């Protein structure tokens, strides 16, 4: 198996006014060459922190990577000097941020913003660079004539395309897409997802797609990891998660979605609230909201265990893959 990116036992904390926020607590994940891993979870689960840790763009302080390894092609990114990281960012690994309105420089033409990435990582002269930047615009469906326009002249969907063009400009091997379509309308979201899928295929890029939308995951990812309060609670192939969701939290997520096919049944929300990350429960972080929680769950944190090849779940009470059909 060729795991292109391997994150091992990553722990990230933030120190805020003397308190410690446990944002990421021992996360391990793998992304294979050309595959997309969907990272799904709710607000504050630590999804974005993981992506930023991989790129090492977490502001330190307040953030601190306490332990773990981030292996890209076998090399630990956390051990690289900053000067080498500059080459990695935007070169080998690129990131698409959630909000296209703030991810672009308002005072720079969109073409020049793409050119900037290109010239940083290649020995292009201006002319070749500009031509290449224009081609990137075309790739994401924007006419190259709009090179000289500013971000405010574009709509939200178009701005996100520009952001994608920037991210893809240097043929990254790994793309970190942080809620790339959350700020967009559904019809535009559909266009952008199609575009990402097409480009992924064309350039054989590996990707981590971060989202809270299970529908987006279903349409784009080969593998899925479900994250809760800074820990992965279940991971596996798309089929494992959507056909055999096993962890009580994963099941809860599916059940709280309004269903497009079933008739007006009552929704089943997950009781309670995500835990305070400055004061995580001692045992399983989901235990206070879990209908199956036992004394053991409250005392000890469950480890990930393999239910079937590749399908992992961190729960004491679940030893068989679940049977609930996606969304039922």
């Amino acid at each position, binding site marked *: 198996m060729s795991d292109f990116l391997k994150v091992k036992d990553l722990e990230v904390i933030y120190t805020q006014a003397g308190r410690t926020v446990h944002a990421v607590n021992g996360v391990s994940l793998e992304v294979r060459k050309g595959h997309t891993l969907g990272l799904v979870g709710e607000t504050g689960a630590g999804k974005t922190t993981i992506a930023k840790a991989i790129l090492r763009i977490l502001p330190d302080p307040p953030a601190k990577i306490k332990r773990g390894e981030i292996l890209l092609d076998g090399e630990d990114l956390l051990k690289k000097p900053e000067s080498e990281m500059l080459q990695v960012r935007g070169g080998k690994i690129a990131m698409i941020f959630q909000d296209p309105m703030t991810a672009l420089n308002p005072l720079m033409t969109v073409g020049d913003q793409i050119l900037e990435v290109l010239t940083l990582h290649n020995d292009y002269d201006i002319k070749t660079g500009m031509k290449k930047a224009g081609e990137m615009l075309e790739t994401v469906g924007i006419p190259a004539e709009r090179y000289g326009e500013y971000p405010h002249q574009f*709509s939200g969907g178009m701005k996100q395309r520009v952001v994608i063009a920037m991210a893809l400009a240097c043929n990254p091997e790994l793309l970190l897409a942080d809620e790339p379509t959350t700020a967009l309308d559904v*019809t535009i*979201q*559909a266009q952008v997802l199609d575009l990402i899928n097409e480009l992924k295929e064309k350039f054989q890029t590996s990707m981590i797609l971060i989202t809270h939308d299970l529908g987006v995951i*279903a*349409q784009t990812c080969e593998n899925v990891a479900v994250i809760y309060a800074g820990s992965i609670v279940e991971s596996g192939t798309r089929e494992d998660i959507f056909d055999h969701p096993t962890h009580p939290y994963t099941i*809860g997520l*599916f059940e709280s979605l309004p269903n497009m096919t079933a008739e007006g049944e009552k929704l089943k929300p997950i009781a309670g609230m995500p835990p305070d990350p400055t004061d995580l429960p001692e045992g399983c972080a989901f235990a206070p909201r879990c209908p199956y929680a036992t004394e053991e769950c409250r005392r000890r944190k469950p480890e990930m265990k393999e239910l079937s090849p590749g399908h992992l779940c961190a729960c004491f009470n679940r030893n068989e893959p679940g049977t609930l059909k*996606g969304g039922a």
Partner: protein
Amino acid sequence: MANELIRVEHLKKYFKVPAGTNHAVDDVSFTIARGETLGVVGESGCGKSTLGRTIIHLLESTDGKIFLNDKDITHVNKAELKALREKMQIVFQDPYSSLNPRLRIENTVIEPLKMSGRFHSKAELKAEANKLMELVGIDERLREAYPHELDGGRRQRVCIARALALNPEFIVCDEPVSALDVSIQAAVLNLLQELQQKMGMAYMFVTHDLSVVKHISDNICVMYLGQLVEKAPTKELFAHTLHPYTKALLSAIPSTDIHHPMQRIRLKGEITSPINPKPGCRFAARCPYATEACQQPQKLEEVSAGHFVSCCRIHEIGE
């Protein structure tokens, strides 16, 4: 309709902008019955929020008429407006910015009660506020808290309690769950439905999320650039989707069913500008079925009982 609560006739709301006139709501008509939920769905900028705000007089309409209980309320003076506010309320999208950060949540709920003049002592006000907060499921220990101490779901509950305070007949819910995580969103949707069953008010539920609108609505209006393009009872709309825009909207929702990938209708381009729109179908520029005939103004026509569509080509397109 004997049971009619709200009737809107040819409602228009235009905004003057430097580039011309923004036709945010352009000739919209519908009725809402007592205790009914009307879902209004559309993408950002289609005028759905403006429509809700215009009906409850947060914005003054440009043209057209609004009726509440068969009484024309299009133009009201200050005293009448105050009385109207007791009957028509709103829950906003963002529970972070729609609560006064310096007011304890109990006092936020008390404010409308005070305004009404129906209560005569502090104790009465407090008792009524307590009743309301119990109704929406806010713990007793949180009543003295400030909004920043609450999470989004609880804040939205406070907003709902405030809207309910004077027993309104009609509440505009403007994307009330869009800012919430799914597990929290489900609880708030359930609450809204329970309250409606208990108290019988009508909702106009504005959202961009079709699965939410399907879950909660009796009838649905689909809006595109200030106009209704399709209007039908919920079941009918999903069973017999007719307008090309509604179809595209439905097909664009990423489905969680991994074994039956949906056939996506790809729309070209993006929503066009609502400023000085041309006559004719506003969706035509993006519509895969558009022809010459679509340049003519379109009318909302009833194609089967209660199902209205504004498209001259539906007979050729089919379902």
